């Protein structure tokens, strides 16, 4: 397995919020979904996922409830809250600004 690309500082929150915004998921599914949609480029280490989720929950951006999965297991599902949606919009805008700026810099032709 190739080493996944290091996540830019602070982008993990954005990614988690976005994934959870699509549909309520449990932690395992979140990590799988992230790998899947990014074509295996982005991967969260199993260890750093939980503290990040708990932090978001403590901020009030996501909320957790216990539900039964499709194969009949109990799991903690995270979903986005209204303040979370605003946070997501904010973070997305920030990211786009930053990403745009970075790509402009790297595209400068060398002389």
């Amino acid at each position: 397995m190739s080493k996944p690309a290091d996540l830019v500082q602070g982008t993990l929150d954005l990614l988690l919020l976005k994934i959870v915004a699509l549909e309520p998921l449990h932690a395992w599914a979140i990590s799988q979904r992230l790998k899947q949609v990014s074509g295996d480029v982005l991967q969260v280490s199993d260890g750093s996922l939980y503290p990040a989720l708990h932090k978001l929950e403590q901020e009030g951006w996501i909320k957790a409830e216990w539900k039964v999965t499709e194969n009949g297991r109990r799991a903690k599902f995270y979903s986005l809250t209204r303040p979370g949606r605003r946070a997501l919009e904010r973070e997305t805008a920030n990211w786009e600004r930053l990403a745009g700026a970075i790509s402009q810099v790297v595209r400068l032709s060398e002389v």
Partner: protein
Amino acid sequence: MLDWRWFRRLTLRLRTLFQRNRVERELEEEFQFYIEQRIELEIAKGLSPEEARSVALRAIDGVEQRKEECRDMRRMNYVDDLMRDLRYAGRAMRRNPGFAALAVLIMALGVGANTAVFSVVNAVLLRPLSYRNPDRIVTLTNRPTTDEATTGLGIRLVSIPNFQDWHDQNSSCEAMAYYRGDEEAVTVGSTAEYAQVTRVSPEFFRVFAVEPILGRRFTAEEVKPGSGGALVISYAYWQSHFGGDPRVLGQTVGGLGRPLPIVGVLRPGFGFPDKTDLWYPINTVFREPTANSRGGQNYFAVGRLKAGVSLEQAQSEMTLIARRLERQYPEFNIGETVFVTRMRVEMVGDVRSTLYLLLGAVGVVLLIACANTATLLLGKATARTREVAIRAALGASRKRVVRQLVTESLMLALFGGALGLLLAYCGSKALVGLAPADLPRLSEIRVDRWVLAFTLGISVLTSLLFGLVPALYAATVDLSEALKQGGRRMVSGVGIVRARGVLVVAETALAVVLLSAAGLLLKSFEALESVALGFQPKKALIMKATVPAPIPAARQFFEDMLPQIRALPGVLAVGATMALPGQIGSMATGPYFFNHLPPQREWPAAPSAVISVVAPGTFRALGIPLKSGRDFNDGDGSDKPLVAAVNEALVRKSLPGENPIGRTVFCLFDSAQPMTIIGVAGDVRERGPAREPMPECYIPYRQHAFNGPTLSIVVRTAGDRSGLEETLRRLANKTSPTVPMKFTTMEAMLSENVATPRFRTLLLAVFAGLAVCLAMAGIYGVMAYTVGQRSNEFGLRIALGASTNSVVRLVLRQGLALACIGLALGLAASVAGTRLLKSMLFEVQPNDPLVYVAVAVLLGVVALVAGYVPASRAAKIDPLAALRQE
């Protein structure tokens, strides 16, 4: 929106806090689920279950660490740490019980004294009155703009016609009433006794929104002028005189003109004004003599503001009405205006400044206690340097160490607070016992939840105050230095010595401020006690008697009694007077004129005099010197020419350099008849020892009507007066069986006059004493510490031939230096601060040098005593032992 988020966060935190087990379980379950999913995935990829498991666990990189990270995210650790710190603090206290007990005791003294004083302040100044919507109840006073005509009460009351205009013209109050209360003679069943009786106008009970718990209020019929009247009684009177029997309704109370039927009993606790026992409608049983006179300013007024009307609105409306009345009736109302004051404020009056003074003083004591505890903790901080260093070496952050040390202080403070509460409970009882009997709301003083909150608050605050500096100091430890030094030797930081010095100087300075204030008050009180009153209070028995009969018959009682008392063995002189010196409540004042009586409109501007109705012999009985002319005698009867005596103050003011004997004077009391002056008496401080004598006009009781017909008989005895009371009671009962009487002494009455200054002087002296003791302990602590630190040096000095005396001097000099700096700062602060006391001082200036000298001397002695024990210990150091340690 913001609030919502905040709230959600709070609930999450609280959940983490209070449902820790559940949160922990969920965390466990969540990780378990995740790991199982991972295992399934790896198995699907073809690994064996064992391999899959180890891959999954490795991927998560330490389940426990991750859990801890999650907990950190939830900020749960604060609480865990706190619990750990508290447990640790408890252990530390048990390990060092002497230190803990001392610190707790010091804080308990500080916190206890503050709580006790606060419980009084809370009851008297802060707690709302126990009426419905108490802030809408106001008093209306009629104050002259000039000081000239001020009566003993310092305010002018309102006349009935003026009140009627206030009542009819205002739209601010939903109810307004006037009243007048007196101690009156009543008969319940067959016993004649005094009761506090208040005559009230119709809306009185509506002002207080007070309902009877039994029976009813007065009907419209019963309050009509000239009607038969009725009686409402207080709950306390119902209990004490009727045993709480509901059949009290319809029973009558005699003595108030005619037997009045009881129609209602008010709820417990209501006794306005002056713990009234009985209320009846004014102008019913008897008509007020001044009912139609705008000059008859004899009544108090109260009102209840309408809902939504502010005090300012009411005040501006009443000012307008007062101006209108001033224009309409200038002869009575010139220069007068109406003040609308919240009743809570008015009731407290000048007690406020005394209470704030005490609160300030006791706050200073608390500061000193804090400084003291801080020096104790600083001393301990040095001893604990190694412990702190080890903790730091093991990875505790500086913040963490400070937090732990502050937690220990908090624990000390909370124990101190708890013990202080206990002290305060006893202390506030003692305060109630010491407080002047006329302190308003005295009976309401208790430890309630506000007092508890106050105690908790100052305990926590003080723990920060005395704990933070030592904690910060202890946490700035040079690791390698601290660890290098052996466990036995303490690190002697220059910083710590300096910090303790500063604290001791500060507490000494604060103690000096308290001492100066107490000294000034003491000196002032002494002046108050030794002021020439103008009469002899010693060995004067007072018998107040009220004759339940109209004036001629009432006069007969006293005419019969006085010669009988005079004939008793051991009695030097007998007199009787309507108002005793210092008895401001029953004092009458009025304008006086010489030669002819001017028209009425000039009366308010005329100088006024105290008017005293007296019996012959009163001057001798009270010990008032007769300066010229003669005393009244039995010949000054109602059929003889009217005579009067004046005092020297009146002569000085109105007839300087003239001989007043034989002049004609008019004193407006019960009549405006001319009287011939027959004598001049010495001045008496009528309004208590703190106020200058007023002009006074004495008139004989046989020629005038007097107060309701009540006189106080004054009996001057040669020596022992035991049994005299019984003899007088027997004589009175023989003369007339239905006369209630009350005995007291002139000295007891005077003592009530100075009750407030005595109260504040005593308390301030106690606080100052406490402050000095704490400061002394502080100086001692610092000196003892220094001697311990420098024992090697002293040993060396002694070994090199220094005499013990020189070592003692060396140590004492240091203690005195600290005390002197504290003294200098304290005196400077006192000179600035004691100005605030000016209004409480009598014949003493705030910067009285003698007081400051005394304070300085006292403090010097205290510093010497505190320094002596450590100094003599330094002198006894065995040079060999000290050198061996080196």
